[in-house]
């Protein structure tokens, strides 16, 4: 089992996962910045992290999910700083022997990350106003 987490300054350039040997299923999720928040058009999201707590909890979550779903690989990449509308702020690659575990793990990881990992986002409008 291999796990890897990265925090990246700014947007993420999506790419295919590294070769995940021993997997019958490899799934990738890309989270991208939508054009609106709270029903208002926005220009970007500003992401914040709290190091080293964010990295530690992201890594712990990856290890927990990998064990829970018997994954062979999990790699999570999350932005901090400004990410403009249309750009990618989160990538998750998962490798598992079979499809169902990979897809279930993907969903579980994202739900848990949104619930407990100290990562925040604040929307910025075209005029520079912050939406909170």
């Amino acid at each position: 089992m291999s796990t890897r987490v990265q925090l990246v300054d700014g947007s993420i350039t999506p790419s295919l996962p590294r070769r995940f040997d021993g997997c019958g299923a490899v799934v990738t999720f890309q989270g991208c910045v939508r054009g609106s928040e709270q029903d208002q058009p926005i220009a970007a999201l500003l992401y914040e992290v709290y190091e080293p707590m964010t990295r530690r909890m992201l890594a712990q979550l990856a290890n927990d999910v990998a064990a829970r779903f018997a994954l062979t690989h999990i790699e999570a990449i999350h932005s901090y700083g400004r990410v403009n509308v249309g750009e990618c702020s989160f990538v998750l690659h998962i490798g598992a022997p079979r499809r169902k575990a990979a897809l279930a793990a993907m969903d579980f990881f994202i739900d848990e990350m949104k619930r407990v990992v100290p990562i925040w986002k604040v929307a910025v409008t075209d005029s520079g106003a912050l939406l909170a």
Partner: protein
Amino acid sequence: MRSVYTIKLFGPQAVRAGTRELRIELPSPAQAGQLLAALGEACPAIQPTLAGSRIAVNHEIAAAEQSILDSDEVALIGMVSGG
């Protein structure tokens, strides 16, 4: 004895509070739960957001009854929204 505790704020809670740090004076040593309650009183703008928030002490989520030392780093962990 009383101590002044500095609490780091992030994301929407920092925007609502208008600051990245709040300083709260409480009898020492304060417990994490007491500090959370005091934050709401000191900053009504974030009070509605505190029900789902936790206090982190030295980068670990603290139980409500955990005592906080003057030398501890304290942060409010709430309204997280990764992904």
